[in-house]
């Protein structure tokens, strides 16, 4: 006996929504998905008419769906936005060069301008070279920190007003869990915010329109709309700490599908006690980027790479900032500690 769509009650249901468990037909699902993203954008007042918005595109499913939905909603509801694609090339052979081909195809399909920034031209290092020096355990730190700055640099080059990324509900829930496991109170407070604060000259505010969309629904959407995306995991990711949080979240979802939204709800309602020390936003003395320390993290990491001390930047290193700034050489003991890397 065919199950009818629970929304229109006319057509046959072809899928079951992971988020609510209702059975829907294709058209109603598309409409529900797009309408939810639209409501998120409107309720959080993410954009203003006339703004230029950069879509961070990696060629993966989240950013492909994001580009598609943004273009669609921009036309359907008349946001009045000018959209562009920004892509970052980390220099991971076998992974990033393939996904960049997907982004170029997306550019032609959606007729949006595209800008690619690469680590090589910005920092002089590719991820492959970094992994050779750092090993497989802490490389995600380098990639993440560099990518954030790369996106901002790309956005400034293109003169966009806002960046939007394809972070979905699963990503936000994982981040909440990870910040608890790592004890990072400052990030815990900020990570459920849908958009970042917009102060500072060197920084472009960024937002997550897909914040309340489940990863499985994004895949369902892309599948039924026959969107073209690149679906391989980063080859360096298996050893990341985030993997633990991800496995836990997937298990939670299998027990109770609403737990992803429950975790986001918990994260939004956390409040930190008074008197807990929080970092203060300032600027980096070397490159002028925003930073809560004297030197921003990417300057510290780069310094470590250039001097052959891969562990500089991993772990506590505040006391060494003055030394780095004034170009003093580090002592023997410090050098030995920072050099040791376990593969």
């Amino acid at each position, binding site marked *: 006996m065919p199950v009818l769509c629970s929304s229109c009650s006319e057509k046959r249901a072809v899928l079951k929504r992971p988020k609510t468990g209702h059975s829907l037909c294709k058209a109603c699902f598309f409409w529900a998905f797009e309408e939810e993203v639209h409501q998120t954008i409107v309720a959080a007042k993410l954009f203003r008419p006339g703004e230029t918005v950069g879509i961070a595109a990696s060629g993966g499913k989240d950013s492909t769906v994001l580009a598609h939905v943004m273009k669609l909603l921009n036309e359907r509801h008349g946001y009045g936005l000018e959209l562009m694609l920004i892509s970052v090339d980390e220099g991971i052979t076998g992974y990033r060069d393939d996904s960049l081909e997907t982004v170029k195809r997306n550019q032609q399909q959606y007729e949006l301008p595209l800008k690619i920034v690469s680590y090589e031209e910005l920092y002089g290092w590719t991820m492959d070279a970094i992994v050779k020096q750092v090993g497989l355990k802490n490389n995600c730190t380098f990639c993440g920190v560099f990518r954030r700055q790369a996106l901002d640099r790309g956005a400034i080059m293109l003169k966009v007003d806002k960046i939007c990324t394809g972070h979905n509900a699963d990503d936000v829930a994982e981040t909440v869990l990870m910040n608890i496991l790592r004890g990072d109170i400052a990030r815990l407070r900020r990570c459920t915010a849908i958009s970042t604060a917009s102060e500072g000259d060197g920084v472009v505010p960024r937002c997550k329109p897909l914040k309340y969309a489940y990863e499985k629904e994004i895949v369902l959407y892309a599948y039924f709309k026959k969107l073209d995306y690149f679906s391989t995991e980063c080859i360096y990711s298996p050893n990341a700490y985030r993997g633990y949080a991800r496995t836990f979240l997937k298990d939670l979802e299998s027990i*109770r599908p609403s737990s992803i939204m429950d975790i986001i709800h918990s994260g*939004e309602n956390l409040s930190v006690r008074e008197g807990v020390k929080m970092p203060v936003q300032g600027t980096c003395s070397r490159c002028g980027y925003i930073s809560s320390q004297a030197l921003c993290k990417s300057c510290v990491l780069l310094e470590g790479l250039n001097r052959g001390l891969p562990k500089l930047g991993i772990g506590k290193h505040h006391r060494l900032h003055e030394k780095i700034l004034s170009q003093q050489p580090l002592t023997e003991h410090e050098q030995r500690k920072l050099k040791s890397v376990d593969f």
Partner: protein
Amino acid sequence: MLHPDGCEICADGSREAAAREASPWRSARSAFWKMKSRGSSAGSRSASKKCVKCKEELAAVVIRAGDAYCRKCFRENFIHKFRAMLGKTRVIFPGEKVLLAVSGGPSSCSMLSQVQEGVSQNAHKKLRFFPGIVYIDEGGALGQCKEMRQKTTSELCDMFRSTGFPFYILPLEQVLDLPGSVLTPSPPSDQPGSVYKAAVDLFLQSGDSSSDGKAEEQECVSLPAVQESHTRLLQQLIGSAQTLTAKQDLLNTFRQHLLVHTARTRGYSKLMQGDSCTRLAVKLLTSISLGRGAQLAQDTGFSDCRYGGVTVVRPMREYSAKEIAYYNHMFKVPSVVIPNLDTKMPDKASIQRLTQNFVTKLQADFHSTVSTIYRTGEKLQTAGRGSSAAEDAERCVLCVCGLDTAAEEASALQATLISEQLSQSSVPVKPEPPANVGQCCSSERPCGGAEGTGDCCRSSRDHEATDLRSLLCYSCRRTVRDMSSVDRLPQYVLSEAQRRQNRSAMKEQISEFLLDDADENN
């Protein structure tokens, strides 16, 4: 890791030689420990490892990597932590009656032995409160047979009797007979913290030699006879929850209600629970996963004031489960193994079980996991207004915490509601023809629904379910959604819910005449 006849973990050389003769297994194990600690500190063999505190005795136990203590120092440290926890928080006043909630497990039995030692010491370091013990027998909810329950309770009875404190053994079935007042925070009778020092001085001046006379006569309480019908009702209540997660959540809630009620009726102003650091870390992650972020500080903090007159304190929160296990083993603290709803269940049977496995496994690879999670929890506080000032209507009917269901703009709750709306038919289903009108409107309880719109004519189940939802916090709503029928909830919950609905309906009717800051807490 713990040998049956009590050998210490890194014994000295001479004892090792004897052990080697004694049994090959034992020697293999001690050789393993020697090998393991050979890698740790700068080249010293474990056999000659000194206690890090007194630096004289040989180390007997290693708690964290690098922290090796001898028996004496370990014991001192353990006892000191307990006293320091009570002392620095200044929550327990001298002369107060404190109820110890003992589940029979290692943490709560360890807490019991600490209190026992503390109360019986010489005057100057003596713990100055009057303890009582309570044990809740949950065998009915688990489906245990009468003989098993009797056996467990008589074992615990003997243990409690030997302490000399008054003790109460209650079956969980009594939760069905609780009054609705359990869900309302009673006015606190505590003095505020600033008066702590004055209270201590006063107590000392009045001479605490009278304290022995004040201790109640120990009541010999055997397990009260439990009616079969009550057990069946309880099982139906637990059985109405479809998922194990919801079952465990409900069980915890009702157990807590019964404990608070016992404390209130017997005149205890504090309730001590024996949650260890490991247990609290798991509870924190579980609470986050269940949507209890707003109530985290109350669930896992040192003191929990949501019940008003009775404050729940957790003095064992700085002990890891490992420490407690070592202490209980080395100093022969008795405890009983009692099964739980998720004993012997597979890993993914419930969220609580999954989280426990996750944290334990992660702790094995990253030794700082539990303490990091614990420290993170310490830095959080209860969101929204202070629990003492909130009115009845703004508290959850089940967990008595503040409500966190104001669906603000751009929040997860609002997004969920929108998704529900969009996935369902936009045409409202016509309500059932009013066959229930006569019944519903003529029943004794006045109908809370607005007059004339037909709201009160929906089937009674929907009526109760949707109305109950508005009185619950986010995670209790989720739990109740897993229940097949709300009617199975105990009467006190349902009648309290009805009372609150009536009051809010009344308030709505007279809202235009009420001035701001009308004081409802008399």
